[in-house]
């Protein structure tokens, strides 16, 4: 695993919103227990890979001593997108494919919050494909975990944008004919600044990837293979040593800042590599906007809001 995992977290110095008072400082509190973080009982099928991702999200919250009110858990539509209901924290279950812009609205106006987005492959790469590209290129600070199961599960087995060629679904009875999306390549090409891949059958690795993504100051993207036992059983056996497969980590000497090398790793045949493919520390959208605001606010220093507006009105007389 790459050494970037041990980096200290750097929080973006986000929008200096004069308008938004900082929430009152809270007293010294103990970290939350799993019981305090868990909300509704998950509605997933027994054996679904998503259980593992949820459990590891709880573990991350426990480990990093995050409090309920400092987390927002956002999702779109899909099996995996039921996620926010299972977490005892502020959260939103938004419309299909649009969780990223919704979460961006939070991230860009509330620097004090951890914004986590969970979703599936349909949400991320099909209906929400445009948002994936643009949130990545703008480098908006948030953590995005895509539970990729290669199939539409909630609607009961249609072809997904990551379904491999030949996958027999209800919309491709003879086998999928459309070339699948490679999420890693997609993310790297879009300009994502943190791109990692993991699988729900390796809990320690999932936790490590989520934690590294959270600590990344920017758009942190993790693709997590998460088997749909109902509609695509055994899809990821080849990546699971317990099923006779192989879990191959990104080579120790891989330079995570090397975009071309990352792209090459992403092109490996399934099961491919697991770990951090690419990481780039360029400034976030949040930081850039904060810089603009700082400069603009400097020009109206000492003025109350109505006085700033008055200056505009004076010019329109």
């Amino acid at each position, binding site marked *: 695993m790459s050494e970037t995992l041990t980096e200290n977290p750097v929080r973006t110095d986000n929008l200096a919103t004069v308008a938004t*008072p900082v929430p009152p400082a809270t007293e010294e509190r103990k970290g939350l227990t799993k019981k305090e973080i868990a909300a509704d009982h998950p509605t997933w099928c027994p054996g679904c890979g998503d259980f593992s991702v949820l459990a590891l999200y709880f573990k991350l919250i426990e480990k990093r001593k995050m409090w309920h*009110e400092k987390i927002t858990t956002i999702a779109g539509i899909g099996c995996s997108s039921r996620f926010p209901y299972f977490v005892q924290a*502020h959260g939103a279950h938004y419309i299909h494919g649009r969780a990223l812009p919704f979460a961006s609205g939070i991230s860009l106006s509330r620097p004090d919050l951890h914004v986590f987005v969970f979703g599936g492959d349909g949400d991320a790469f099909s209906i929400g494909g445009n948002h994936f590209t643009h949130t990545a290129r703008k480098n908006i600070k948030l953590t995005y975990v895509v539970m990729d199961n290669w199939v539409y599960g909630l609607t009961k087995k249609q072809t997904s944008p990551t379904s491999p060629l030949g996958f027999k679904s209800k919309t491709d009875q003879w086998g999928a004919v459309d070339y699948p999306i490679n999420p890693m390549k997609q993310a790297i090409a879009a300009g994502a600044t943190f791109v990692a891949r993991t699988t729900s059958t390796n809990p320690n690795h999932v936790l490590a990837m989520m934690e590294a993504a959270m600590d990344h100051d920017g758009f942190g993207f993790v693709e997590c293979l998460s088997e749909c036992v109902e509609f695509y059983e055994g899809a990821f056996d080849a990546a699971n040593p317990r099923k006779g497969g192989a879990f191959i980590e990104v080579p120790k000497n891989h330079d995570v800042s090397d975009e071309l090398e990352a792209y090459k790793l992403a092109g490996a045949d399934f099961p491919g590599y697991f770990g951090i493919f690419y990481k780039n520390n360029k400034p976030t959208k949040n930081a850039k906007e904060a810089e603009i*605001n700082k400069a603009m606010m400097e020009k109206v220093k000492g003025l109350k809001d109505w006085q700033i507006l*008055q200056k505009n009105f004076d010019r329109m*007389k």
Partner: protein
Amino acid sequence: MSDTIAEASSNGAPKVSRIDEAVIRIAGNSQDGIQAIGGFLARLAGRSEQEVMTFMTIPSTISGGPSIFQVRIGSGEVLTSGDDADVLLAFYQHSYEGHIGSLKKGGIVLYDSDHVQAKPEWEKDYHHVGVPISSLTVEAIGGTAKDKGKNIYALGLIARTFDLNLPKLEKLIGERFTGKDPSILNNALAAFHAGYSHSLGNVLETFKFKESKGKDGHQVVMNGNEALAYGLIAAGVRFGAGYPITPWSDIMELLRRELPKYGGTFMQTEDEIAAISMAIGASYAGRVAVTGSSGPGISLKTEALGWAIMAEMPLVIVDVQRGGPSTGMPTNIEQSDLNIAVNGGHGDAPRVVIAPASVEDCFYTAIEAVNIARKYSVPVIILTDQGIATRIEAFTEPNLEKICQDISPDFTPVAEHKPYDLSAPEGLTHHVAPGTRIQSGKYPIVTGLEHDELGHPTGSPKLHMQMTAKRRKKLQALGASLPVPKIYGPPEGNILLVGWGSTQGPIREAVDRARAAGDSVSALHIKHVNPLPPGLENIFSGFNHVLVVEMNDEGLYGFGQLGALLRARYCDPKIHGVNKTDGLTWKVKEILERTKTSVSAGLRKL
């Protein structure tokens, strides 16, 4: 130029007439800077405590194409930009030929004789004044500027014709060109003075505005898009997201430029859906945010709008209407988005729709929209249109110190929290922003699924019925609390003209003219389109005919969009539509003629 009083002319100098008001139409191409002339005249009127209203058409092409700018300035009340012009300033042959018809008989056509060949057959009906504007501009400025600046030269001609306040105009020109290369200001002033000093030769008459009756306090001069954007800032909005589309783009550009000064920001997103989603996300994060668009963009936003209604999230959505459907007539005016604003989307999805009546009203409507959105936790759509967005008006300067509001979120910890409390008075939902600690340890979820009081999903038919009713009841409560709209004219009579949005001015002027001619006509302006205000049935009962005047198609059943809504609501067979779809604002005489036809047709049916 009604009510002109001629003053005795002496020594053969042109006669000076005292006038109440004037309509000046400037016709040229879109790159000639004719909007600048109109802008100067409007500003000057504002500073002279006069009323002013402008009207412009722009081609939807990128550069070039015929364009007009019409200014109506008055010492008394100005309700419209005027049906016909008193003075036409024509830069080209096509401007001259295309717009002479909009000039009053006996009016003055000032034309650029470098480009326009006057037609002898028109010379007896209109007073022709040819000035080689292009070549005289080149002469005045010299150098390589060519005829750039001829708009300012023409402004000088107009200033002379109407004996406008020279120092005030010079000051306005100075303000406009400060900060640039000083030679630009010098050239502008040179062109202006050359135009002002040009001998008007055979002109027999010049004009002087009567003293204005005086307004309370200072006036500000701006267009509707500006007024709306500044209203949002005054209301405390600090986050917005949008995607460029004409004529909404001006609002997003202004907010992008201004909001950072207040610590806020405006995001240009990848598409319309991302724009509304980002705004909803920011609203959820604690402070009501804004998104907006024009027709086609609003269609794209409707799924997310449904989510905001279901999750009861405050939000302001601006729809600057244009001609539709689809790309339609992107630079023309139409009021054909009322249906999508009131009903657009799937499911039972009540929302608030407000339509400002004037530029000034755009400012205050923005504030009202924000406050309704917050109090009722609901998306509020502001329906403006291309006409109001681009027209300039002068209005009394608001007391910003009093009006500006702070709507910062409150993060004080709460003991427990149920956003969708079914026992809440009037069904009002209250959210606590993320960042707020809830001591019970039970945190709410906001969702598009039908939900229980904490926001967790439910399949319970009973809860769906209760929650659907809750979302409806809060807007019924809002409707009941709205003021009964005031009737313009007597509360009883033969004809009631009902309008909404930017048509308030021409409808009122139509009432004035009809009443002056002895007809029994009153008007009612409906600003709150959804929910409707109380008391309308009583108002309708005072009239024989209720005619809904709208800039949209009469539709399959013949009543227009608001007309159909009022028919469905009040089941009143007196309600009929007066509709048009020519992409232009109502002329007063059109309203009067169409009203007459409609009423006599109705009588025949009886």
